[in-house]
């Protein structure tokens, strides 16, 4: 098959086509069931949005607060002998806490949006209050994280995390390896997002067949995709000048 890649592509085409045909025939036979399931899930989700919002965000916030507590404890255990090893540990262990914090922020906005979509005043009020509380906790976590890094590198890191220019200042203060790591991560995220947009578009198309979700998701995907690709290309253009 290595010698004849065309056979591989034909096989992939045939297998994926057959799977698609099988899936669509199964779904067509159970169309009422699929639509019913989506509707009942939608009703259930609308009624439990505040509870889900609070429980998921509380869990993520607690995880990020615990991570910061652990890192601060590690920082306090530094001696001249173990300094390098502890700093390495802090830098390696800081990512999961930040991930929880970022996920919590995204969940906050998602559940606030979901509550608004169902137009239940009580749920909107609870979600808005929860969003405010959790966003405050996340801001504290992120500021603490930045302050930890500033403590490790007092000579190079002075950017104020509460400033509007923080991202710009942080980039300016970074040295060659940190800039390289940031740009590498940025390119990785650019590559991954291209697939995410494609998958999101395919999922919306599939859902649209059984459940009318309207034009809005397609417009939003197109706008985000466009902004994402064009901003990357314009940044590449600026670099090459």
């Amino acid at each position, binding site marked *: 098959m290595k010698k004849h890649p065309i056979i591989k592509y034909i096989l992939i085409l045939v297998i994926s086509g057959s799977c698609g045909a099988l899936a669509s025939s199964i779904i067509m036979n159970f169309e009422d069931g699929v639509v019913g399931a989506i509707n009942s899930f939608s009703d259930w989700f609308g009624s439990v949005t505040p509870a889900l919002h609070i429980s998921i965000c509380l869990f993520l916030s607690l995880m990020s607060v615990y991570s910061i507590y652990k890192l601060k404890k590690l920082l306090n255990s530094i001696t*001249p002998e173990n*300094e*390098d090893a502890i*700093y*390495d540990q802090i*830098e390696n262990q800081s990512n999961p806490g930040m991930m929880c914090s970022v996920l919590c922020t995204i969940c906050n906005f998602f559940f606030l949006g979901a509550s608004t979509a169902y137009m239940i005043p009580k749920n909107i009020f609870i979600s808005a209050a929860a969003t405010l509380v959790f966003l405050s906790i996340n801001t504290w976590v992120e500021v603490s994280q930045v302050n930890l890094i500033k403590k*490790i*590198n007092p*000579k*190079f*890191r002075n950017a104020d995390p509460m400033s509007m220019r923080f991202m710009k200042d942080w980039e300016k203060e*970074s*040295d*060659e*390896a*940190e800039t*390289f*790591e940031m740009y590498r991560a940025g390119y990785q995220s650019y590559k991954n997002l291209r697939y995410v947009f494609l998958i999101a578009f395919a999922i919306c198309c599939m859902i649209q067949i059984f459940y009318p979700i309207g034009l809005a998701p397609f417009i939003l995907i197109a706008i985000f995709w466009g902004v994402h690709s064009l901003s990357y290309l314009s940044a590449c253009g600026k670099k090459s000048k």
Partner: protein
Amino acid sequence: MPLINHLKEYRARFHLSQTDLGNLVGVSRQTISLIERGDYNPSVTLALKIAKVLEATVEELFSYLEEQ
């Protein structure tokens, strides 16, 4: 990675921590750590700065292993 470095040994000779060496050459501690672990290849400028501080040549600190 084909670049081998002896940064840790040379740093130990001068009793410098990663933070101290970073401060002397004008980079963060994390950058020194990344170079020592072989996760980052420094620029020529940085390699020369490190060599000057550690009183060695760049070739003594970094050597390139030809890939088979």
